[in-house]
């Protein structure tokens, strides 16, 4: 039986609606999420379905409503907060790092914090230096917060449902370029996608390529092109960065001996560096060539289409670097 095809945005909305219907303690909070439906339309229609008490428009007050959501999550509800852009993460960093991420470790089992922060990251729409960033590496460096980064509509739905049901704080990365993408998504409301299990996009023997979020979608496309050129990539979509499925990455590197990581963020101190290090620690002797990273340079992202594209990873750049690594 073939599945129906819907967009990443629709899949997210379906997950929200299903979880809100399933659990009355789940509510949505964020800027312009009610009548407007959120800056990218994810919550469109949910106000009519669930009412103003559960689809809560906020003032422009990210530290305030994020801290509020943590307090609400500590006291019997399950808030799902929308940050309009991931670039606003620094505004709420204190609340997430010093509060949400530490509660359970310090206060023990009494201190659950079932909170989801949804935020779209990423470039590709010429939004410029402060509306195009991926800042997940900041959170990776701070314990206590799970990081989820779906790259397909089916994963968007299944992982968001898992995030809402999770007892711990979850940062849920969406991506502006992924919102309109369409694919098959199961209708079964009980279907969730577990955290910490990478998705094998493509099986191959020549090179391991690791990515997440929009970069995973690019790698998926690049792997097909590489196959035409006779290079067989083992392509992994990490799906979640915390927890990170290093077993899958290490197993793949042991098979291919070559690792390339594609990250849509600046190079220094990035997630790719962490993955590379973990592979060195666990599979150094399996590497036949140096680990390659395709990332942004250490610069802000420009608004000009030409400059933005020049800075970002692309299918062509992935193919070029993969060929270089395989030939090297």
């Amino acid at each position, binding site marked *: 039986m073939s599945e129906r095809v819907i967009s990443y945005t629709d899949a997210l909305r379906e997950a929200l609606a299903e979880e809100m219907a399933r659990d009355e*303690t789940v*509510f949505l909070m964020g800027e312009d999420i009610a009548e407007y439906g959120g800056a990218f339309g994810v919550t469109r229609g949910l106000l009519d379905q669930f009412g103003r*008490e559960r689809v*809560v428009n*906020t*003032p422009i*007050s990210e*530290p*305030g*409503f*994020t*801290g*509020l*959501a*943590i*307090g*609400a*999550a*500590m*006291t*019997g*509800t399950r808030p799902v907060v929308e940050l309009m852009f991931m670039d606003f993460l620094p505004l709420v960093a*204190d*609340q997430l790092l*010093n*509060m949400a991420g*530490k*509660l*359970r*470790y*310090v*206060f*023990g*089992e*009494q*201190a*659950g914090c079932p909170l989801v922060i949804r935020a779209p990251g990423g470039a590709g729409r010429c939004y410029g230096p402060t509306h195009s960033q991926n800042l997940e590496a900041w959170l990776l460096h701070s*314990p*206590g917060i*799970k990081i989820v980064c779906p790259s397909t509509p089916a994963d968007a739905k299944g992982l968001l449902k898992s995030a809402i049901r999770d*007892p*711990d704080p979850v940062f849920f990365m969406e991506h502006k370029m992924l919102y309109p993408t369409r694919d098959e998504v199961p209708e079964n409301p009980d279907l969730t996608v577990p955290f910490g299990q990478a998705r094998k996009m493509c099986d191959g023997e020549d090179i391991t390529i690791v990515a997440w979020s929009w970069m995973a979608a690019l790698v998926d496309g690049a792997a097909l092109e590489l196959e035409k050129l006779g290079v067989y990539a083992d392509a992994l979509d990490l799906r979640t960065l915390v927890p990170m499925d290093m077993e899958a990455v290490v197993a793949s590197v042991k098979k291919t001996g070559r690792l390339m990581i594609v990250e849509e963020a600046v190079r220094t101190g990035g997630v790719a560096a962490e993955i590379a290090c973990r592979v060195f620690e666990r599979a150094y002797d399996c590497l036949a060539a140096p680990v390659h990273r395709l990332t942004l340079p250490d610069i802000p992202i420009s608004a000009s289409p030409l400059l933005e594209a020049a800075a970002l990873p692309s299918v062509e750049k992935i193919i070029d670097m993969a060929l270089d690594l395989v030939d090297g």
Partner: protein
Amino acid sequence: MKNELENYRMMVLIRRFEETIERLFSQGDVKGTTHPSTGQEAVPVGVCAALGPGDMITSNHRGHGHFLARGGDPGRMMAEFFGKATGYSGGRGGSQLMADYGIGFLGGNGITGGNIPTAVGAAFSAKYLKRDRVAVCFFGDGAANQGTCHEAMNLAAVWCLPVVFVCENNQYAMSTPVAAAAGVPDLAVRAAGYGFPGEVVDGNDVEAVTAAVGLARERALSGRGPTLLECKTYRLSGHSRGDPRRYRSRGEEAAARKVCPIVRYKAVLTARGLLDEPADADLVRDVEEQVAQAVAFAKNSPYPDVADLERGVFA
């Protein structure tokens, strides 16, 4: 409402507890840092006397008094200072980070102003879940100038949430006097800018605090939203361990000591015939014994197991 002698005893307990901790730090028995609330005892005792069992508190870095007044166990608190397994946070939190959700104490917060939105969130869920309870937030005059304070108060006003903002104005944010940090002499007037009542309260008068919180709580429970109570008091101790207090005179401190909440309440209760010198001496002795037992419990408790160091980040 608890009776007068119970409240007086709690104030004396907080005083002795704080003085004991300062001594233990200076002797090197306890490591790290601590922020005593010596001189501010009437605020937490007055506030907690007005609360119901389901109400919730978020506290700040200077929270020992808040926790004791809400029913925190002195032994388990002391054990936390000593970094012991029996401490409220098993040694992971220290002076600033202890919690007991069972008695509605949602914990301290080491980031000044960080706990104000949290209280508003507890009030949000109380309203969302239709529970008859209020949230109380303790914060200082220093935190009143943080952006989180502004944002939390505005959100509480917009959504008419059942929260009581208790600003303990102890005159100094570390070394900075209120007048150097705020453009108004009374922080309570800021409430008008959010659209809810703000009131200056004599924070060294425990019964005045209880009365003000009682009214604010009724207001919150009847759906009329938040209140800001600025409780004026004075921090007799230094900001934290090792504060030489160069920013104020010993004369100023001596004057404040004469009108501290314990001195004042003792006089009130004596005038009412509820307390005399022998009874007070008995009460103080009893409190000192309780604090000594707390210290003994802490000292005799085991240290946490290092094997658990990496456990408990996630469920």
